[in-house]
């Protein structure tokens, strides 16, 4: 049985079901225990599971991460939430010098199943300190899994997979997705890391769309369909591990590649995807691969500048047209 749920509701359900299934699951984060519940994603949990398991944390992001890590050593499976990914930057020592290398350093004796949710703001004047998406950074780290779920059903399945998995994961959640709906199965289920999905099959060009860009990519693909360009939209769902097989299959078929990403262009996730294809498929492409990413610039606050900073459906359409 599945119902239409919003992305935020799907997260909420994933957390609630995980906490029901296993009392080791705890949720830490600033304001997780208020009614507004981090855009609704944690609403109601504290009433059900109490303040030990659903805990408003001091504004101490580095410690929050380390707390989750230490708690995981005692068998807990913590989920931590950052209302903005930007706030998480205080915790990069904990993530990079400790969490990422814990398993490695322990020689495989000890894992830290910690799930970190980071929400990325977009538009409406979020500005440079409330809108960064650093998924490319996280995906560079050995020992960390990175999910960029685009739909309600994926976010639920990936979250539960992460909570009950053994390797720490960072979820980069696009805030503008939170009210979008999809059919979400009622029962607990998993979506595996490292398995891309073809959101729209096509034969002319592979459009890899990362996370929050997926709806835009699908709209652009629909528009191009009318113009006779058949776009295959590939959603990797997780960047680490990255499903290279599905990627190669798709590009092997279409022999055109464009990567759309809500991150900065240079040294970003799109570079990795293009480099992988270049390494593996070499000169088998019919067009030069294209990056469709944010400019290499911090985020402007003004709506006038946002309109230029964030691409529109039409921009993507015309970027793809140029490949033909």
């Amino acid at each position, binding site marked *: 049985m599945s119902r239409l749920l919003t992305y935020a509701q799907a997260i909420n359900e994933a957390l609630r079901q995980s906490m029901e299934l296993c009392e080791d699951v*705890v949720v830490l984060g600033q304001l997780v225990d208020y009614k507004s519940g981090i855009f609704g994603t944690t609403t109601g949990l504290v009433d059900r599971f109490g303040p030990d398991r659903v805990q408003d944390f001091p504004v101490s992001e580095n410690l929050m991460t*380390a*707390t989750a890590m230490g708690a995981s050593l005692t068998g807990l499976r913590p989920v931590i939430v950052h209302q903005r990914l930007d706030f998480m930057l205080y915790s990069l020592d904990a993530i990079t010098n400790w969490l990422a290398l814990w398993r490695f350093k322990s020689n495989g004796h000890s894992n830290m199943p910690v799930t970190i949710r980071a929400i990325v703001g977009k538009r409406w004047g979020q500005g440079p300190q409330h809108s960064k998406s650093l998924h490319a950074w996280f995906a560079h780290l*050995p020992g960390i899994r990175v999910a960029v779920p685009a739909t309600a059903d994926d976010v639920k399945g990936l979250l539960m997979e992460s909570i009950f998995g053994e390797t720490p994961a960072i979820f980069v959640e696009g805030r*503008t997705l939170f009210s979008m709906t*999809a059919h979400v199965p009622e029962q607990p289920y*998993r979506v595996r890391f490292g398995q891309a999905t073809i959101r729209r099959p096509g034969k002319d060009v592979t459009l890899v769309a990362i996370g929050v860009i997926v709806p835009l990519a699908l709209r652009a693909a629909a528009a191009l369909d009318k113009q006779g360009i058949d776009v295959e939209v590939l959603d990797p769902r997780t960047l680490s591990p990255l499903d290279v097989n599905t990627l190669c299959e798709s590009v092997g078929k279409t022999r055109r590649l464009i990567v759309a990403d809500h991150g900065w262009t240079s040294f970003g996730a799109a570079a990795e995807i293009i480099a992988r294809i270049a390494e593996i498929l070499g000169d088998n492409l019919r067009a030069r691969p294209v990056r469709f990413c944010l400019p290499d610039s911090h985020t402007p606050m003004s709506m006038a500048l946002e309109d230029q900073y964030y691409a529109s459906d039409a921009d993507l359409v015309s970027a793809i047209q140029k490949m033909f």
Partner: protein
Amino acid sequence: MATEPAVKSIQLSHRTITLIGRYQEMEIDLLDRQTLLFLFRQMLRLRRMEEALMQEYHPADEMRCPMHFCIGQEAVPAALSLLVEPEDYLFSHHRSHGYYFAKGSPLRELFAEVYGKETGANGGKAGSQDISHHASRFYSGAILSGAVSIAVGAAFGLQIRKSRNISIAGFGEGATDEGAFWEAANYAGLRRLPILFVCENNRYATYSDQLKRQPNDNICERVVTFGVRTRRIFGNDVVKAYLTLREEMARVRGGEGPGLVEAYTYRWNSHVGPEDDNVNNYRPASEIQFWKENCPIRLLQEKLEAAGYLDSQTLGRMEREIAAEIAANFQFAKESPFPSAGDWRAMNWDDSSPLADRLLGAQSRSEFDQSQPEARLEPY
């Protein structure tokens, strides 16, 4: 010795401590003979182990990793070793050997680890400054204050499981320069977590004097305002260290909330490695001399001998046992094979998921309606 103030009469600080001259206040009557001898033996074992590692370090050059020796700082680890329970968690910093020892983690695996061998506590992946031993709940790491924060997390885990076990974090005064430390203190105080902070204040972070980095030598006064009980002791008095740690651990275990013990002590060696770092001219000779005269082992040994608890025969036997143990550890380490790399991915990621396999079903594929609008943000 009327001219020399007793430690009780001064406010303990590295600035004043050398004024006490020879430390006279160890109260061995507070402990039984067996405990005293055990404390002594543990200090001696740790000392001899460190000396042996130093001896072998250069020029043999087979232990290729930065190593921070703890000679001079044996009292706290020895005391801890009698008090910590197997199910307690113990976290330490780069100067890890004493804490590893205190947790009762297998010493031969420490030797093998610093030799980079497969049989090492971490299969040769971590070395001295990052060593851990999961089975005995011991963890360390070389980033200042990082392990203290994780120790707080373990304490939180123990608390919500209502365990009677506790978490212990060992670190130096240098770690309290880091903001991370104060986040840890704040949260421990807030939640009254079952954690004991053990700060070995040896005055220096590498070469840098505490008072070059902090306005005052007053870690206790600072920490107590964060809701953590504090005790400051002369850390080379192993009896004092033992009694203080015992009391504080009992309180933490009893649910009285977090505590910190600040033990004033001193490392005899250079900050790292067996080389001498006096070229940096950062420690007065008189200070080094004070601390060597107040060697924690010697202080206890004299008391034990005076009380007739220790004679040269017993001591000789102890030394022989310890030497044999160390020799065996070296042999184990040296004879063990080197690791080979194998699968880098599996070393860094665990792709298994036994729990998920048990709890979660597979997903039915669903469609996404691309015509729906994206959210328009509100202020937050």
